[in-house]
């Protein structure tokens, strides 16, 4: 039945001919150009989650502290004393590949907006980044641009960028991953929702003027990067953090004065998705007149206004009698605020340009009729073979040399050169600065604090997507626990390749299942997240890279614990048991040059008990430092605790058993921590007893002190040399 629709038009809006037919069927007529653009955007992968939505139902958002799960601009969790934290993570991979500085900056802007759209004041930002190796100039350019863009946006906006992670692997060449997370704080009874409610209420567009930038951003993120992306380049948006800061302050004031009914930021697909989504959530319709929209450029038509992705804009729903109060607030900040329409009870999105009706579509068709795709899924046989490979240790350089190489590996080396370009202290709340396991941000006026981390090891998920995704959750939990926080909730960002490839869709399925399982087992609900597909360049997909953002709660800030050794003479204790697990390890990659083998196993029950032991000991005040074991294993954890404390260590009581020295030193067995304890005051005995009572293995392995890092018969490196190698690793 297909009408004579030009395929190039369908390509522009990223719809298939059968999807077009479906639109005609649902509408009972052909859509006009504006309507087609609106369908294209709302049914895109980016807005409509047409491939991932069915999978996301695996995630559980149930939990006693959850105030808002997925479905709003960000999730929200109760942290006690009337406070809630609001958080979400989001990708900006495709824009960053095209223009790293602007792409990353607007990524930060977008996630901050999601948080303050909920009414929360942004109190922290994090960024999880993946690049190709730095010896290629293009990758260095992307790295520099992305880090610069993140810093420029966050620093100007005035949110502390307190953490994140950076990995370098070949698969991210040309397709870097840029995931930004933001956390906001709000009184729990003040949460704002993105609802257009109340017939006759005004629809206002506030913030930046609308320009031609970013048109088709949503569909852009829903296809592979190709030569063709070059020609879509005008889509690049330049963010304005100064304006966003004013917009945030104005929105905070609206909420404080209770002047708005609903609030929805403009992100992907701009005015289209914000009007459609808020109408849908409110169960209402919206009618707007694009002629009322303040423009940055002349001659824009309805199509362009509806699909513009100009940044720093917000849609607010206001009762008519509050209009003047709202205008007063925006005038204070010299911001535009246009009344562009009103809420109706028709359930339709009606777009006018002056008198002319440009679009008239039932909202339900745009939101509830998204044609889900269920692509074929099957595992890659080659991958299974790689996973089955044993790690061959013969020919390795010996532990001392391996230690030096690992310290200087870009995946392990000090990140200070990056985070000192981010303001990580503004707002005067950052208790544990970047460089530790998780950042800790205190909640002023209480004894409470939150710990925040992002984690996701692409090597593990490449080798075993299901296990790797679970390990990301486990590692995030340990990072949070090491500071003294109880894991509270998770946000996730699923970075995958083209899901039309059966092995990619299989990876996605597996990763979601693994992550969902780990979250259930470790009792951390998923409250928000984001999906980024089509991370492919020239047909090659990035490794499956699910990233976990986790927030934990510290009830008494006095208990906060850091990674650095504090006092010479303290006993160093290893909690947890090491196994012969070098599959997928940083050692195998950096020292042996192989990404293969089986990633470390996960044992949820053990993770849970181990975390309990560590939390209990931290709360008793027994630990002078705590650090989880992750990339590079025990040796790297020891080194990091030494660097952070500015003191050496001697580890001479390791029990090797039948482990290889490499596995003992660099293996990445899970559920392990390195802690240090004052040997006096019977603390050590208490710690050992507590661990054993929880059936967690524990062993005093050495002593803090001196100016060398000494581990058994294998490693004896001057602290200063080790530090220099570690500090120079990012070049």
């Amino acid at each position, binding site marked *: 039945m297909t009408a004579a629709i030009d395929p190039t038009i369908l390509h522009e809006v990223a719809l298939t001919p059968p999807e077009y037919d479906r639109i005609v069927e649902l509408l009972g007529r052909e859509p006009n150009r504006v309507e087609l653009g609106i369908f294209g955007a709302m049914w895109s992968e980016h807005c409509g989650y047409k491939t991932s939505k069915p999978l996301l139902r695996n995630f559980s958002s149930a939990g006693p502290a959850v105030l808002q799960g997925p479905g709003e601009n960000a999730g929200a969790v109760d942290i006690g004393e009337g406070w809630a934290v609001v958080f979400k993570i989001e990708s900006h991979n495709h824009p960053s590949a*095209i*223009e790293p*500085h*602007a792409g990353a900056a607007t990524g930060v802007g977008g996630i901050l907006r999601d948080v303050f759209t909920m009414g929360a004041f942004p109190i922290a930002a994090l960024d999880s980044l993946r690049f190709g190796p730095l010896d290629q100039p293009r990758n260095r350019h992307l790295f520099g641009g992305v880090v610069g863009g993140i810093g420029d946006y966050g620093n100007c906006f005035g949110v502390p960028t307190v953490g994140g992670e950076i990995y370098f692997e070949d698969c991210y060449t040309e397709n870097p991953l840029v995931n930004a997370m933001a956390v906001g704080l709000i009184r729990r009874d003040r949460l704002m929702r993105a609802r257009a409610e109340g017939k006759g209420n005004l629809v206002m567009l506030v913030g*930046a003027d609308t*320009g*031609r*930038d970013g048109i088709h951003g949503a569909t852009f993120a829903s296809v592979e990067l190709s030569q063709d992306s070059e020609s879509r*380049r*005008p889509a*690049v*948006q*330049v*963010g*304005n953090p*100064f*304006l966003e800061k004013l917009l945030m302050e104005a929105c905070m004031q609206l909420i404080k004065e209770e002047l708005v009914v609903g609030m929805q930021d403009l992100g992907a697909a701009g005015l289209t998705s914000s009007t459609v989504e808020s109408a849908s959530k409110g169960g209402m319709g919206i009618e707007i007149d694009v002629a009322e929209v303040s423009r*940055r*450029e002349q001659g824009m038509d309805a199509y362009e206004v509806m699909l513009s992705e*100009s*940044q720093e804009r917000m849609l607010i729903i206001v009762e008519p009698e509050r209009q003047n109060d709202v205008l007063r607030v925006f005038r204070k900040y*010299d911001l535009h605020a246009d009344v562009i329409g009103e809420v109706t009870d028709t359930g339709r999105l009606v777009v006018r340009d002056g008198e002319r009706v440009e679009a008239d579509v039932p909202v339900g068709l745009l939101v509830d009729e998204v044609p889900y795709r269920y692509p074929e899924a099957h595992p890659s046989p080659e991958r299974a073979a790689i996973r089955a490979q044993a790690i061959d240790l013969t020919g390795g350089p010996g532990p001392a040399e391996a230690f030096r190489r690992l310290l200087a590996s870009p995946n392990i080396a000090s990140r200070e050169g990056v985070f000192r370009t981010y303001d990580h202290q503004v707002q005067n709340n950052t208790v544990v600065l970047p460089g530790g396991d998780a950042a800790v941000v205190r909640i002023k006026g209480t004894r409470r604090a939150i710990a925040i981390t992002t984690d996701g090891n692409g090597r593990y998920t490449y080798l075993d997507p299901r296990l790797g995704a679970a390990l990301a959750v486990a590692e995030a939990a340990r990072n949070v626990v090491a500071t003294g926080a109880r894991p509270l909730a998770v946000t996730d960002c699923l970075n995958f390749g083209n899901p039309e490839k059966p092995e990619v869709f299989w990876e996605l399925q597996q990763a979601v299942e693994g992550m969902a399982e780990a979250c259930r087992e470790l009792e951390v609900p998923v409250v928000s997240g984001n999906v980024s597909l089509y991370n492919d360049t020239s047909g090659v997909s990035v490794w499956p890279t699910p990233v976990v953002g986790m927030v934990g709660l510290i009830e008494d800030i006095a208990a906060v614990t850091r990674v650095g050794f504090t006092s010479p003479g303290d006993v160093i204790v290893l909690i947890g048991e090491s196994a012969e697990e070098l599959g997928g390890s940083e050692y195998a990659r950096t020292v042996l040059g192989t990404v293969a083998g089986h990633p470390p196993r996960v044992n949820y029950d053990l993770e849970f008990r181990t975390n309990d032991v560590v939390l209990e000991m931290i709360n008793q005040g027994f630990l002078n430092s705590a650090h989880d074991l992750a990339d590079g294993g025990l040796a790297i954890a020891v080194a990091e605790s030494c660097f952070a404390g500015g003191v050496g260590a001697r580890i001479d009581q390791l029990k090797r058993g039948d482990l290889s020295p490499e596995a003992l030193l660099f293996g990445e067995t899970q559920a392990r921590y390195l802690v240090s304890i004052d040997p006096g005051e019977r603390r050590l005995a208490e710690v050992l007893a507590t661990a054993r009572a929880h059936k967690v293995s524990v062993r005093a392995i050495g002593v803090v002190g001196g100016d060398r890092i000494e581990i058994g018969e294998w490693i004896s490196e001057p602290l200063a040399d080790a530090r220099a190698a570690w500090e120079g690793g990012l070049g």
Partner: protein
Amino acid sequence: MAGYTAEVYVVLKPLVNDPEGLVIGDGLRNLGFAGVKTVRSGKYLTIELEADDRAEAEQQVEEACQKLLANPVIEDYRFTVREVSAAT
């Protein structure tokens, strides 16, 4: 070799958002310059360089613009080159 001075102008492409220009424009209007319509901000670089001849100097500057001085995704550039000291 002779010495040349290149003046390079780098500006945002016409459709690209220019937050700096917006602030400067508002600032000027607030100061009472009511006639100011729009301001676009750009960079102005002065480069002293040596080259065998003018053609080579121009070609070097052209390449420098493409590789470093301008970001082709969002910026346009133009330049002039003039000789400042004769060949040695």
